[in-house]
């Protein structure tokens, strides 16, 4: 008698490999992934859309997704992802490079995108297709920026305008002034992107450059300048703030909200997605929201520097980002026209407004703040919703969108430890880079210059430098 297991082994292997005929339910269905917090909203909207467009033949299925994890899920197996998905805009370059996105070519849709959005967003939703032509790949519909949450019981509205005021309040309360929600390259943008405030209270001078003018073909990574005197002065401000007993602290390992709740800090620099937790930490009535404060440089901050002067005022900056809808490249070709129609609807001003009133998604289109004021005056949104939107849209004016139009730049900025170097510099701890080069101190001017050079080099080359140029600052 022959070994029966071989039969079974073979049979099972065949079964393993043989289940290849997949039935095609998806042919007449368009699947949409949206942020998990607003699924119900978009389901209702999609119903309205179907009613208004009787000729729209496809069924539409809306599902919730962790938008932060979406890009990873999509690149791993695009064919299992939705036809229309949503991601934060800094993933666009990566998704296009990984053959996960189709360009948006419908004239009406592209027109709408170009008409509605501010230039800053328009420049980051483009990428090159395989033939080398620049195309629009994404439709913005939510804007996101960092701003300040503060505890009204201990901080007055006036104190919340400056970091000095925050520190004063913290000294009175015997605690630390402010914290962040994470120490990554997005959350530290409040200090990386700090900008000088002019006498008129508006932006004066330029902030640092990160990939400015980079091209989507990846041939040019643009210019980065992270070695200016103002950057050093800002870093020194952070260095003295973290040493200050009533100054800055990194997010607690228990989570920033515990610090906020227990008066471990009086303020938090966070985004709209932290609203629920912030509210729960101090109570809605005690929760203040405003711009990221300003700070004034001291003599110590500017020691040895020429481009900055004692008394200069800077405001914390932010990455001002958008969430976008994109079309999956693995989606069936014949759905393309309808998909674009749906994207046009989902990213329209009207739906953005409704989504703000309904689920507090701050609209991305240009001039949204006027509309938000109208909605507030018409009592369609609550006071804190209004404050949140106002703080965020005002702050967006002080920020720049993450300029990561290719996957490379995104990888270099986020995965290559530059933010860890920055953290080490703020903490004054040393940072091991390569076997031969070590930032053995990050407190002296020379140490700071080396550190900033290392970061800039990392952003541009994806690795740490093996040696430092003779005369810093030098362009990488």
């Amino acid at each position, binding site marked *: 008698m022959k070994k029966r297991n071989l039969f079974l082994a073979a049979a099972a292997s065949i079964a393993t490999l043989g289940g290849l005929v997949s039935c095609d339910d998806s042919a007449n269905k368009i699947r949409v992934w949206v942020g*998990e917090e607003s699924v119900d909203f978009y389901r209702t909207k999609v119903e309205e859309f179907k009613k208004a467009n009787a000729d729209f033949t496809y069924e539409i299925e809306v599902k919730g*997704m962790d938008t932060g994890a979406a890009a990873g899920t999509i690149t791993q197996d695009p064919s*299992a992802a939705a036809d229309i998905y949503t991601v934060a805009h800094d993933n666009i370059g990566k998704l296009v490079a990984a053959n996960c996105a189709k360009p948006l070519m419908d004239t009406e849709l592209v027109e709408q995108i170009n008409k509605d959005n501010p230039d800053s967003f328009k420049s980051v939703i483009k990428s090159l297709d395989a033939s080398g032509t620049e195309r629009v790949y994404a439709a913005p519909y939510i804007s996101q920026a960092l701003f300040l949450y503060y505890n009204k019981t201990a901080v007055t509205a006036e104190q919340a305008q400056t970091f000095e005021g925050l520190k004063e309040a913290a000294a009175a309360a015997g605690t630390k002034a402010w914290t962040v929600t994470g120490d990554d390259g997005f959350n530290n943008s409040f200090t990386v992107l700090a900008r000088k405030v002019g006498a008129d209270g508006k932006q004066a001078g330029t902030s640092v450059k990160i990939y400015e003018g980079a091209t989507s073909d990846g041939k040019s990574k643009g210019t980065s300048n992270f070695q200016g005197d103002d950057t050093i002065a800002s870093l020194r401000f952070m260095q003295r703030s973290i040493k200050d007993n009533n100054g800055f602290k990194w997010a607690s390992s228990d989570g920033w909200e515990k610090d906020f709740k227990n008066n471990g800090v009086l303020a938090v620099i966070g985004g709209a997605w932290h609203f629920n937790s912030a509210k729960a*930490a*101090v109570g809605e009535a005690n929760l203040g929201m405003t711009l990221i404060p300003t700070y004034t440089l001291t003599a110590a901050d500017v020691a040895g520097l020429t481009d900055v002067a004692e008394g200069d005022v800077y405001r914390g900056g932010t990455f001002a980002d958008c969430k976008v809808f994109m079309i999956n490249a693995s989606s069936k070709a014949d759905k393309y026209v309808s998909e674009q129609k749906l994207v046009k609807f989902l990213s329209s001003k009207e739906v953005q407004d409704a989504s703000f009133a309904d689920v507090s998604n701050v609209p991305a289109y240009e001039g949204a703040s006027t509309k938000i004021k109208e909605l507030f005056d018409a009592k369609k949104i609550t006071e804190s919703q209004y404050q949140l939107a106002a703080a965020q849209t005002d702050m967006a004016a002080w920020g720049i969108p993450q300029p990561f139009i290719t996957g490379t730049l995104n990888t270099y900025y986020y995965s290559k430890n530059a933010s860890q170097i920055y953290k080490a510099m703020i903490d004054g701890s040393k940072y091991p880079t390569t076997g031969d080069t070590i930032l053995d101190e990050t407190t002296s001017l020379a140490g700071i210059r080396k550190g900033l050079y290392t970061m800039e080099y990392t952003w541009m080359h994806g690795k740490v430098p093996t040696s430092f140029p003779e005369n810093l600052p030098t362009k990488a």
Partner: protein
Amino acid sequence: MMNSNVSKPKHYRSQKKANAVSLAVTYLILIVMSIIWLIPFVWVVLSSFRCEYVDGTFVGTVTSNFFPKALGFTNYKNLFTATYYGVSHAFPRWLLNTLIVAIVDCIISTFLVLSVAYCMSKLKFKLRKAFMNITMIIGLFPGFLSMIAIYFLLKSMGLSGNSDNPTLNIVGLVLAYSAGAGLGFQIAKGFFDIIPNSLVESAKLDGCSNFKIFIKIIIPLAKPIIIYQALMSFTGPWMDFIFAKVIIGSGNPECWTVAVGLYSLLFGTHPDTNLFTQFAAGCVIVSLPITTLFMFLQKYYVEGVTAGAVKG
């Protein structure tokens, strides 16, 4: 510690006294240990019943006070009715999914473990030692490195990454959980090794086939180890929060298991930390059936070992 204070009693009285002392010490140790063991669980349970408000806002975050200021069932009510990831009544669905996965996994895994363990312990055949060595070597590779490969192999069978019919992904998950179970036969084999070979030999002399011996002699004696294996494989799916998400897919929250769901609620990319008390309530609900099962079955588990006809 356990027997040292009972060293060679000289006469009955001092022995009795020494026994009493040692018993008291034992109680003390056990009670202290029990308290240490219980604290984290008590904390989770208390958190799940916490019902505090700050200025009208429900506080669902972690708090540093061990004992809540107010108690209530709000978290449980919200947990069962809330919509997570756009799935209405997501939690009960996740529970049901997990229950199904756990039951099927339990049946298949236990069967596979028993059959392999029996072969390894009581049958002599070519390649037996080779098989044992190979399985051990394979077991040394960290599993999740193969996660992506398993995902695509299952996808080839339509059992993962299937967005048309995501329920099939659950089948894939069961398969992935239970398929490898047979390779974890070592404990059951250790148990079978204690069953005297003479029982098997005499049955063979009576003309029993190996199949009959397995069914009629080994299985009845193996009750404790069956229960042990069943318990282990039943509880596995309630605890895995990484593999299950990959196989079922982040985009199919309605098919998630409860561990994936609960973990994602609190540790997603933009977690809502205000859901912590609901998370705790979920934890209590998840732990209840498994714990009850453990309490109910531990008697079989521990005493079953002695009850069998194993004692030589």
